[in-house]
């Protein structure tokens, strides 16, 4: 589904990604861990197409197409979803309206008719239940006045609405209390199918208790320096990154 080869990206003169290789297949869950500043969020942003970053080398194939050539919205319509670490507020734009446009843009791209108002409302009700999102929130402006937990739930709600092929969740667990974490993680797990894939960026093993990864990767200084199965996350939780970093010679 996603194949990243030797991806280099920089912001200004500063190179942040320095040769990422990663392959994600349908039905898989990948966790990306690593110390602060190692490039985890940058990887997510670059895959989504954020133009703050310049790709200087490498190739990314998504669903058989050159991802890097596609504009941001087309990547999204093709089924790439980014769960934001810091979701922005859009004052005055209701969540319902925002989602209606997003869902119908995707349907248009797939050659489907737009949803009727009734169909859309039904879909919203169904999907907001996945993350126990208070239905009142969908009447409010996008992320405006949402608590930290509500914002993250809202990201997963949008993921549920858009049914992406590949979801990249950028530190979805940060700032969540135990209950919210459980709800968000359970939501993600419930959305998992054999046809879609998830990349979870996280600092903490506890998220992975709920979202069980098939692969765990450690990102350090812009490269994946180690990959393993879910036991790697447990080991990192206990021992930190030092043993890996010390092992890693540039």
């Amino acid at each position, binding site marked *: 589904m996603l194949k990243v080869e030797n991806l280099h990206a920089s912001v200004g003169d500063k190179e942040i990604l320095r040769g990422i290789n990663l392959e994600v297949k349908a039905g898989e869950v990948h966790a990306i861990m690593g110390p602060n500043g190692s490039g985890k969020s940058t990887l997510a942003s670059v895959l989504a*197409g954020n133009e703050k970053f310049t790709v200087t080398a490498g190739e990314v194939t998504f669903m058989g197409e050159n991802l890097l050539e596609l504009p*941001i919205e087309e990547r999204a319509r093709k089924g790439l*979803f980014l769960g934001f670490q810091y979701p*922005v507020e859009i004052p*005055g734009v209701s969540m319902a309206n*925002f989602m209606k446009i997003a869902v119908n843009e995707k349907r248009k791209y797939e050659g489907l008719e737009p949803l009727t108002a009734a169909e859309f409302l039904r879909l919203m009700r169904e999907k907001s239940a996945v993350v126990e999102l208070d239905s009142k929130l969908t009447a409010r402006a996008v992320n405006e006045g949402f608590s930290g937990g509500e914002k993250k739930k809202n990201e997963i709600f949008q993921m549920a609405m858009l049914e992406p092929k590949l979801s990249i969740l950028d530190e979805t667990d940060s700032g969540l209390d135990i209950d919210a974490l459980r709800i968000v993680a359970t939501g993600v797990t419930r959305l998992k199918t054999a046809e879609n894939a998830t990349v979870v960026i996280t600092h903490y093993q506890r998220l992975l208790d709920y979202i069980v990864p098939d692969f765990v990767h450690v990102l350090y200084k812009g490269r994946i320096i180690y990959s393993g199965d879910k036991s790697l996350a447990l080991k990192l939780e206990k021992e930190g990154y030092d043993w890996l970093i010390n092992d890693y010679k540039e």
Partner: protein
Amino acid sequence: MKENNNDIITSLESKEYEYGFTTDIETETLPKGLNEGIVRAISEKKGEPEWMMEYRLKAFRHWQTMSLPTWAHLDIPDIDFQDIIYYAEPKPKKKLGSMDEVDPELKRTFDKLGIPLEEQMALAGVAVDAVMDSVSVKTTFRETLAEKGIIFCSISEAIREYPELVRKYLGSVVSYADNFYSALNAAVFSDGSFCYIPKGVRCPMELSTYFRINAKGTGQFERTLIVADEGSYVSYLEGCTAPQRDENQLHAAVVEIVVENNAEVKYSTVQNWYPGDKEGKGGVYNFVTKRGLCRENARLSWTQVETGSAITWKYPSCVLAGDNSVGEFYSVAMTNNYQQADTGTKMIHLGRNTRSRIVSKGISAGRSQNSYRGLVKIAPKAENARNYSQCDSLLIGDKCGAHTFPHIDCRNKTAMLEHEATTSKISEDQLFYCNQRGISTEDAVGLIVNGYAKEVLAKLPMEFAVEAQKLLAISLEGSVG
């Protein structure tokens, strides 16, 4: 982001003004220029009584002594007032008895604009007094309104049919001597609308007028007079679109509203005159004087969505003369490319316990300049007057300007005045967020701008609000970069 947006700009810049077309209709025009002879000719063509011609001539003579106002934050090219045609009317083939007799060309124009003149209007509950160039072509729902004693007709007809009413109120709120453009309008106004709501009558439908400049090189001088007698209510809609053309067009309208004791008037405008091309060539110059007078317990609410015109100079105002009267002003003014707008309101508190509320949302894009100019005046006798003002500016890009000139003149210590102002920009993070959800940058900007303007749009009648939302999005096309 830059590269992507540049592509969008390039693709959109090739788009033409959506409503840019002209209709071929035989037009009867007077020669260019302005003198007493022209003023007399206009009055004669309209078959006006002597007092009306005298009024026009007085206004014209006064106008000759006046000079152009220069205080606005506008760069106005020289206007040659002798190079303008002051009167043009679509020439009807014969007297019109029914809709079937209306010029098919004219009907097509209205259809292109999406103005439903016939059954659709009945369903929507809107009566239309359609003004094409200078002569009212058709008035609908006249009979329904007549049953309630409501008069809704062209101002020319009102001058002929209801001379006492017109004579009593015309110029009573906006005197011809008020300003340069009001004097010009009083001298040469070609047509417009008149509306009278009798005592205690609640107008059962939204009254709606569509204006449209059509004859090439014709200035449009509309005159609107609305009188809401004691305890009455009316909601009035004004909307305009103008066809594309090269030379500039002058538009100097006057709207006067009299709100008698315990009456209420809502006046909503969507203004979409041709704004000029992306280099700033052409476009309508819009110099409008709008003012209402509120008697005791009266209420006047102005709502405007301004997206068009190359130059906008417009300050819908409320004179709160009666005790406990209320004035409101809700405005969205959007400028793009080289458009300039200097708009706002005046709230003149004369009576006791008078209240006013101002919500102004400016949106500037391209290389445009957008100014809010407001005056809140509390007279010495206006005990316990209150005003709340909110002036927000939204900037799109880094080549435009947003300016705020709020004036407060308070002569009474019991007054309470509040003023809030914000300036914001559409952030790249917001656009990225929308893009990531599959929403194009163009749609995202429309969405964000409509969200920003929501508080004002919510004040518009339903069908107008939808049109206004579309307009905001259309007017911003190609503005992100």
